[in-house]
């Protein structure tokens, strides 16, 4: 049987941008009961140990999105997360840190400006010209509503955004929460600026094509929204609505079909030259030479009339399925 309470050490990130030169960690020990949430522990630090300890919270019901932090590197909504569950996962020392250490204002409080700016960019609202004196309400069928999937449940906590490694290394990247919102309003039948959002999210560097597909956002979201699922849907919508432009990323996605039609497998050499163009290939020459030496690729891989890729059995089935099931084109 699980114990009713456990002794826990909270190793807590502390920093005050106004007075501190460097951040430091303070340890607090406490007995934690089986029903306590991480937010209860933050409250106890403030109320019982150090009144200057700072963090955000408001609703305590998992709906305002204020209390997102990281515990042992894991994105956590403090008011939703049972503390002993994390002790079970990580042991008796819990590392309490803000969502992003480089954006800290004070302790757990970060400056979320980048998050809100990017969120605002995708027009996260139904944009349409409405009749100021409508005669009836705007109706939506259940099927139309269901297109949102779960994207409407976002509470803008920022957990996915600050868990995303691309947000961390590329300041232009809009990030999973903004993409989720872009999807949410683009598929809304009352909205009229979907194409604008698709074009925005199709841009290189800032858009969905820079996603590394790590699924950190899906794991981080306390509302189980799965932002990367919406990212895939945005990719598909860009092709469906003819917004996708020919570039390295779109050719890379679409180019898989070339190899699959011919061999059933991806043609690894062809996908690089097709995506990048022969001139673009130039930058891979050094790596290619090394792979050649190691036997990872063969000298004839790039020569179109020599087939270096094995063929799958019953290739004709794949060819036929592609013909009858393909729904998009570049």
């Amino acid at each position, binding site marked *: 049987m699980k114990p009713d309470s456990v002794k826990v050490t909270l190793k807590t990130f502390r920093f005050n941008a106004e007075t501190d030169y460097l951040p430091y960690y303070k340890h607090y020990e406490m007995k934690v009961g089986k029903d306590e949430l991480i937010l209860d522990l933050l409250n106890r630090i403030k109320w019982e140990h150090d009144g200057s300890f700072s963090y955000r919270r408001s609703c305590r019901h998992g709906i305002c999105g204020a209390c997102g932090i990281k515990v042992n590197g894991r994105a956590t909504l403090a008011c939703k997360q049972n503390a002993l569950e994390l002790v079970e996962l990580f042991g008796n020392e819990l590392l309490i840190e803000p969502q992003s250490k480089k954006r800290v204002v004070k302790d757990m409080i970060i400056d979320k400006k980048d998050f809100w700016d990017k969120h605002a960019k995708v027009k996260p609202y139904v944009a349409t010209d409405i009749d100021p004196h409508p005669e009836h309400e705007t109706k939506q069928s259940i099927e139309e509503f269901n297109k949102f999937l779960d994207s409407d449940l976002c509470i803008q906590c920022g957990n996915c955004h600050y868990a995303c490694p691309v947000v961390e290394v590329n300041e232009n990247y809009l990030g999973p929460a903004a993409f989720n919102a872009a999807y949410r309003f683009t598929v809304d039948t009352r909205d009229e600026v979907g194409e604008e959002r698709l074009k925005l999210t199709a841009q290189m560097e800032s858009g969905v094509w820079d996603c590394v597909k790590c699924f950190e956002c899906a794991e981080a979201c306390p509302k189980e929204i799965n932002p990367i699922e919406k990212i895939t*849907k945005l990719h598909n919508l860009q092709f469906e609505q003819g917004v996708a432009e020919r570039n390295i990323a779109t050719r890379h*996605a679409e180019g898989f079909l070339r190899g699959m039609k011919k061999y059933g497998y*991806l043609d690894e050499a062809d996908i690089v030259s097709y995506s990048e163009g022969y001139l673009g290939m130039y930058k891979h020459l050094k790596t290619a030479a090394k792979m050649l030496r190691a036997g990872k690729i063969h000298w004839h891989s790039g020569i179109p009339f020599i087939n270096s890729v094995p063929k799958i059995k019953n290739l004709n089935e794949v060819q036929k399925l592609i013909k009858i*099931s393909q729904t998009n084109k570049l």
Partner: protein
Amino acid sequence: MSQLHYALFTGCTAKQSTPELLSSTLAVAKKLGIKITILEEASCCGASHLQDFDEFLAHVLNARNICYAEKLGLTMITICNTCQLNSAMTKHALDTDPKLKARVNEKLAEVGLEYKGTSEIKHFLYCLIDEYGLDNIKNRIKVPLSQFNIAPFYGCHNIRPSELHNNANGKENPYNPTSLDKLIEALEGHPVDYAHKNKCCGFHVELQANHTSEVLAGNAMVDAIDNNADLMVTPCPLCHLKMDTYQDDVGHVIGRDVELPVLHMPQMVALALGCTEKEIGLNFHVQKATHLYSKTA
């Protein structure tokens, strides 16, 4: 224990740029007495890119692959994290959405196939741990890996989204994964603990967002090196390709010399089981790795 028998979905990479992955997998299975039937009919899983172009088509093609494992009445096993995820995502989508399943089956019927949902999909790593068992592996070790500090690199698509994988990967937690660590310990190697072991290698944006890709790979490699790793091991050939073949570029971007052999999970097991040099295939690596074999031989 009755003999384990799996249908192997090789994926494209093991058939092309990482032949050593296929040979070492087959060698490990042979040594452990696991029967493998290769799914010669299986096509590419879409590698998470075809899905972006046309999700429905990707479901149809992945469902077709699974049909062939179903025909044999076997669990379909994968040796690539991305193959695992994409096949499992299709299985999940079809098993939970009857309308989609019907739409997909309508297409499959045209080639005489039907997706039923009867086969499990599991990565070979979890077959070894959950089904074959670490104790059984321990009993067959010929060459303990005790002289190596080994950095486990898990790769995203085996551990996230955890909800999807939990039935296939022994409830591994993506924030505190343990399978590879336990496997290394069972082979008597020393697992390296480092913060980046469950992070992304950046492979999937190598072409379009090169800088992001190099920084992510670099952060992980440097973290492993700074924690005294002699080598890195991964269950994903795409992580292997990123980490092994681009070490110079990665080092250049992050301003460090990066030199670290990156082994496929089955290669590490094959080393400990005393498989032949040819089966293990360390000569196929860009970053010199053959010395690992000489050290154990």
